């Protein structure tokens, strides 16, 4: 087994790739995903929106509106200067800025009582358009209550009207979430982590495997190997075994990250161990793709810089083009030709397999047909890449009289 041991040594002599591509990037994903998905919340809670009110009126109406928005969301202090307003919007500190102009309160009440068109407050939206719509609806609800009160009680003063408006706007519609979705939530987090892990797997395993095979293909090394009595099949199988060990270790590391309570004491554990097993198996199957890709890359005898560049490009391309970065690959439609392009990416089928294991996007049982078919397609991708690599390798050996040393 000396070749196997040497191949492993070559791989472990790239600590930066091991540390960054597999170690840090996976950990980064885990921390971010855990903080994005609040697994402790069992069901639905109203989104709270960061809002700022620029009060140029200083009337009971504007002050009451500010208090109301503070109760519904988070009030952010923004100065009444164009620089501060631009800062708040461009940096996304607030989703919505409400500007209450001078004399607004009395004009609004007068217009309501006269039956005239109510004056509007100005709003500035940040790029979080959805949150801004929510805050805008809350402003509308409050002012609607104020208008009703002003019409119904024509002799009340502003103080009484704003109290009534608050009372009206505090009524909420009833809602129901059919059953406890805690399990769904943590399952989603677990699944999302594994879907996202296709990126560190592609990046890390491809680069390391390519470097291991390239090291053995370098001119002088190759010549010495050919002179030795070991058949090249056995030699290649041993390098392949070392690559498999690397892929396996990467997979174990990802599983440990997902299953152990590493960050914040909240494990990405799932209520359903069989689901966890199915997702983990899908990840193990997916490692075959970067393994083949690394082998293919090694056939070109590229330098470590090119290997790094290509694995970065392929990793990012698979993540972005299959929509993994925006959610699970199966549920986010990128629209247009990208929905067709992603069908040709193994990462999309990997995400499909995880979704079919009963996770992302809702509860439900395992769709065995889709699960097995998707994993089958992932394996076929790996086999196709392997075949291309073998063909290129054969062509290279037959057509060249020597191997170029690049490293």
């Amino acid at each position, binding site marked *: 087994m000396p070749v196997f041991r040497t191949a492993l040594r070559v791989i472990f002599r790239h600590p*930066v*790739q091991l540390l*960054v591509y597999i170690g840090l*990037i996976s950990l*980064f994903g885990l921390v971010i*995903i855990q903080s994005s998905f*609040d697994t402790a919340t069992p*069901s*639905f*809670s109203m*989104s709270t929106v960061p809002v700022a009110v620029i009060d140029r009126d200083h009337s009971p109406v504007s002050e009451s509106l500010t208090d109301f928005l503070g109760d519904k969301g988070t009030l952010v202090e923004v100065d009444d200067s164009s*620089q501060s*307003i*631009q*800062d708040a*919007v*461009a940096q996304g*500190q607030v989703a919505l*800025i*409400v500007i209450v102009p001078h004399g607004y309160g009395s004009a609004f009440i007068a217009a309501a009582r006269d*039956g005239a068109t109510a004056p*509007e407050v*100005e709003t*500035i*939206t*940040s790029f979080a358009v*959805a949150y801004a*719509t*929510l805050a*805008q*609806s809350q402003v509308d*609800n409050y002012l*609607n*209550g104020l*208008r*009703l009160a002003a*019409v*119904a009680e024509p002799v009340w003063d502003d103080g009484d009207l704003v109290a009534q408006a608050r009372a*009206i706007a505090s*009524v909420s*519609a009833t*809602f129901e*979430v059919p059953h406890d*979705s805690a399990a*769904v939530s943590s399952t989603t987090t677990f699944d*999302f982590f594994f879907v996202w892990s296709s990126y560190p797997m592609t990046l890390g395993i491809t680069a390391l495997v390519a470097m291991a095979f390239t090291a053995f293909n370098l001119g002088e090394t190759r010549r010495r190997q050919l002179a030795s009595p070991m058949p090249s099949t056995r030699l290649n199988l041993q390098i392949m075994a070392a690559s498999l060990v690397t892929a396996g270790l990467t997979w174990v590391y990802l599983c440990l990250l997902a299953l152990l309570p590493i960050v914040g004491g909240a494990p990405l554990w799932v209520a359903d161990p069989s689901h966890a097993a199915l997702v983990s198996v899908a990840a193990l199957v997916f490692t075959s793709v970067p393994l083949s890709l690394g082998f293919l890359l090694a056939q070109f005898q590229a*330098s*470590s*810089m090119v290997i*790094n560049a290509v694995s*970065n*490009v392929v990793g*990012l*391309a698979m993540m972005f*083009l299959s929509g993994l970065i925006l*959610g699970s690959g199966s549920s986010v439609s*990128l*629209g*247009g030709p990208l929905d067709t392009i992603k069908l040709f990416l193994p990462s999309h089928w990997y995400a499909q397999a995880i979704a079919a294991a009963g996770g992302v996007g*809702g509860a439900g049982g395992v769709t065995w047909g889709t699960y097995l078919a998707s994993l089958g397609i992932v394996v076929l991708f790996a086999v196709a890449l392997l075949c291309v690599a073998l063909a290129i390798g054969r062509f290279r050996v037959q057509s060249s009289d020597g191997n170029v040393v690049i490293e």
Partner: protein
Amino acid sequence: MRTAFVYTVKILVRDRAVLLWAVAFPLILSSMFYAVFSNLDQIYTLGRMPVLVVQDDNYAGAPQFATLIDQLGVDRSSDPLLEPTFVPTEAQARDTMADQDFLGFIQVTSTGKPTYVMDPGRVDGSADVMDPTRQSVILTLLDRYSQDAAYVADLAKTDPSKLADPALLAALSGHTDFTQPISATTNPVSDTVRYFYAALAFSCIMMMSFGLSAVSSWKADASPVGARRSLGGQSWTRSLAPTLAAAWLLSFICVLIGFCYIRFAFGISFGGKEWACVAVLALSTLVSTLVGALIGAINAPTGVKSGLTVLITCVLSAFAGLYGPPSQKLGDWVAVHLPGLSVINPVRQVYEAFYNLYYYDSYSRFTEKVIILAITAVVGFVVCVAVMRRTRYRSL
């Protein structure tokens, strides 16, 4: 010095791997971003929210509620918020919600009040991060109806005569908006441009490879060329200065190609301040050349050095939002809560410089970023000089 400059340019251009890394990568990355994110702003808006509405006898008995649904879903001329699909029974609504892509269903109860039942897969923790907000908006829209109804019921108890007032009835009919959207920034707020700015900032720091290669060709123990140059009898300043200048020039050209590609091929806006962008690119490539040179000066195998550049590029870019929304969130959080960390991250500074040019009409924020980058470059230069002057080699 001119000869040293010309030959360093030749050495760097002949290294095909570095050239591929420097020219092709920004082009590939931005093309990918264009393909994926060109319609990103639509993904992160609410869109028309698909909901089921149970159209049973209770619904028929609440004509005002039916009017509200029509107003929100059909009549709203500019951008309808809801996309209602009508089903005859609650049971059918539950089945359809489970099978298809609906956020939930709205039902009018026997008391005439609306109830909203959410799809349990599309609440907190949903794979689509916008779902909880969509649900909140739907609930807030329904709140308005419940508030009107509760107030009418209240008046009916305390003073029923007011309900005959035509002015009140007019106020109760219809779903009026009281807000008027205006814009505060020079250019429309967009989430898409952030990715291209991050990609460009990433390309700038990646140009470290040129600094690294250039110093390898200068350092006596790093390459045969370096060994020959050290015997040339030139002072270290006269040989290092053109070496770094050559690396910087190539970095700048490569990034400029990426910039032109993003600006002109994809039409990504830089707020009409392209010349200021070119200045940022020049300054940031100077920073990355110096960082690359510093890494090149370390006594370590080539693999470790190139690994170190990968490490620096990946980690610093994460805080500029290169890896999508979670990474943007992290970068924004660090910028607000730990501003010191953002200041020492040149990738973040370049990203923010572009961002400030796009959003602000004044140059004050942009100038801040440029000053920070200039200080980083000066610090880099001083450290470079301190590390590289009077270098002694045990053996060549």
